[in-house]
Every structure is written in C-alpha cells, then in structure tokens.
C-alpha cells in the first residue's frame, strides 16, 4: 500500500496546494472551462431545443446530429482540433462545446416534449400566445428534464476537460497527464481522486436542483 501512503503524502505537501500547479488553481481552471463550455453550449442548444420541443420541427435532424457526435471519440476530436487550430484555448473549448451540445439539446427538447399535450392545448384555448405557452407552461413543467440535460452536459465537460490536458489544457487533468509523463503515480492518483470528487459534487448539485424543480412540477400539477 505504498502507493496509497505516497498519495496521502502528495496531498499533504504544501506545494500541492499552492501556486499555478496547486489544486486550488487547477480546480478554478477546471470549473472555469466547465462554466465557459456549458455556457456557450447553452447559448446554442437552449433556443434550438426550445424551438424543436415546441414545434416538433428539425427533430429528426437533432436526433441524427446527436447520434453522430456520440459516435466520435473525444480524444480523437480533441487532438484533431488541436492540430488544426494550434495551441491555446480555442481547440479544446470548441471540442468541449461540440460534445456538450447534444446532451443539452436533447434535455431541452425532451423537457418541452414531456409536457402533456392536453395541458398545452388548454393553455392555447385560454388564449396564451405561443411564446407564453413556451415560457409559462412548457419550460416550467419540463424544467426538471431540461436541468437533466444541463447535468449531463456538465458531467460530459468535466470528464472531457480532464482528457483535454493531453493537448495542453490546464485544469485537474494536468496531474494525470503530467504524472503519467514523469511516472509519478501518486500524483496521477491524487489528481484523479480530486476529479472524481468534483464530478460527484457537481452531479449532486444538479440532482438537488432537479429535485427542487420536480417538486414544483408536482405542486403545479396537483
């Protein structure tokens, strides 16, 4: 169990916690990439998903796009973009956005579609405009599923940003890639554990947000 004690040792070193290669800095980088990517993906996917969910148009296209992106290997995409675009944030962030859009898109249109058609018809019969139906009926009622899409996208990005360290991205993946290059297993293991904890915490936060909104969902329905 020497690896384990060496990993504990890695965690207890002060250099692990300070400077540009310290956990706090890497964590902030990782969260920054995640927020940036999910933000950009949301700007693209949310309006599109609302449109698809509300009108039912382009649905086949969205499903096909989602399936096609899913089949692409993330590492292949990252390295390809890196060689095409060169060093810097553009390549990894573009690849991450591309991977975050499908789950987000699917979450948004599935959420809107999940609303009972009778409820939508009732809203229309009351004289609501299409925009009102979308913002006051479909989005509130489908919010839990829409957040599910954000949740999946976040997980996807946290995981892929880790892999991004291979093409020079900062963040927590650095410990794994740098550790691998210098055969420093304790550092790899330590970094891995931090990523896992981060993923679980973010997933838990989204789960709480989802359960809060689905609570409102039932109250509205009752």
């Amino acid at each position: 169990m020497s690896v384990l004690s060496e990993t504990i040792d890695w965690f207890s070193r002060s250099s692990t916690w300070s400077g540009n290669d310290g956990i706090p800095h890497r964590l902030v980088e990782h969260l920054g990439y995640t927020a940036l990517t999910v933000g950009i993906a949301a700007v693209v996917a949310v309006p599109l998903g609302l449109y698809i969910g509300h009108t039912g148009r382009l649905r086949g296209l969205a499903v096909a796009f989602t399936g096609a992106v899913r089949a692409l290997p993330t590492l292949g995409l990252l390295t390809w973009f890196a060689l095409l675009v060169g060093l810097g944030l553009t390549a990894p962030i573009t690849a991450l956005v591309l991977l975050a859009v499908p789950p987000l898109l699917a979450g948004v249109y599935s959420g809107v579609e999940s609303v009972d058609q009778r409820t939508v018809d009732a809203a229309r019969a009351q004289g609501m405009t299409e925009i009102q139906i979308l913002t006051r009926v479909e989005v509130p009622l489908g919010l839990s599923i829409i957040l599910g899409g954000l949740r999946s996208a976040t997980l996807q990005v946290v995981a892929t940003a880790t892999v991004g360290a291979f093409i020079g991205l900062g963040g927590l993946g650095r410990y794994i890639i740098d550790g691998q290059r210098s055969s420093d297993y304790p550092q790899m293991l330590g970094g891995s554990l931090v990523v896992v904890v981060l993923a679980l915490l973010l997933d838990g936060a989204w789960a709480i947000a989802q359960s809060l909104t689905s609570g409102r969902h039932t109250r509205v329905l009752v």
Partner: protein
Amino acid sequence: MTWAWENRELVLELFWRHAWLSAIPVVVGGLLAVPVGWFSHRNPRLRGGVLALVSLLYTVPSLPLLVILPLVIGTGFLSPLNVLIALTIYAVAIMARTANDAFGSVSPAVLDAARATGYAPARLAFTVELPLAGPVLLAGLRVVSVSTVSLVSIGALIGVSSLGSLFTDGYQRDFTTEIVVGIVATVVLALLFDAVLVLLGRLAMPWARSQRSVTPTQGRWAAFFTRGGVSAGGDAL
C-alpha cells in the same frame, strides 16, 4: 489516405484490438445489467437505490477511473484489464436503467395471462418477460455499444493501445492524417457493431421486425430524459 494504406497492418491490428476491447465490455456489461434491471423492476422499493447506485458509477469520469482502478483491483497499471473493467462498469451503469425500463414496458396483462396458464416464475421470466423486453433491451445495448467503442480510445492515454493510439501518436508527431484515420476507423467500428446488434436482434426477435424500430439515439435519450429522475447523461467519460 495513402498513409492509411501504407500502414494498413498497423491500423488493422489496432482496429482488431479496439474491437475486442469494446466487444467484451458490451457483452459482459449487457449480461450483468439485464438481471440487475429485472431485479430493480421487480422490487420497486429497492429500485431507487439500485438505479441511484448505477448512475453514481456513471458519474465517475473515465480517465480518472482508469488511473484509480489498478489500485483497487490490483492489476498492473498498463493492463488492458483496467480498460475492460472500467468499460464494463459503464456498460452496466447505462444498461441497468434501460433494462429496468425494458421490463417495465412489458404489459402486466400478458404476464397475468401467462401466470394463469400455469407458467412457473423462471419460465415466465425467460420465455415471456425477456423476449417481450427484448426490443428495448436491444435499443439500450446499441447505445452501450456506440459509447463503449468511442470510450476505448481514452485507454491510449495510459498506454493501452487501440485506435486511440493513432490519436496520441498523431498528435505527438503533428500528423493530422493519422488522427483522421483513427476517427474514421472508430466510427466504422461503431457502425459495424451497431449493424451486428441489429442483425442479431432480427434473428432473435423476428416478430419485432415489422414494428417501428427504435434508433439508438432515440433509445438513449428517451431512457435518459423522458423518465425524469436521475439522468445518467451521455457518454460523459
């Protein structure tokens, strides 16, 4: 593309390795997940717990999992076994929820009718429930297969070679063609697996052929989102 032809032996060898590294987790994961899904469907009180546990497994990102696994199971750091086990875990995580839904999709009236005609529990499970859950199980397995094939490449980062090695090698040599060949080969492999699964499905379930087919993406997102609850996400890892 001349590069791919000149290096066809290497590409083909990596293709086969990739195929094995994907096929084993899909088969083993599928076989493990079906009983889990059946169990959780049969025990509504435990269902929440079982499904929460499997989706928790899915939350663990792949690269960190590949680093942590050797320590937990005592394999060598470069052992392909790490990739096989990690991908089996993900396969179970995706498939168990779908299997649960698949058994939930079987009409209770049909089960009652089978019981009334004297089917014993085991015979009921294998000859009535399983075949009727088949189409949804197949849709789930197709999702698992696509995601597994695309995930195997990550192993290249820790030295387990597959088509992913073309990505790491191409990147280090600043050689785009090699990466593109790797991506194309991975997609071809995913399509091949999908075709095999569809074919096996038609052989095993000839009656389902006339019904509207469930595409992998529809199956995937339907399973992940329309159920509301905990979403297992895309192949995040």
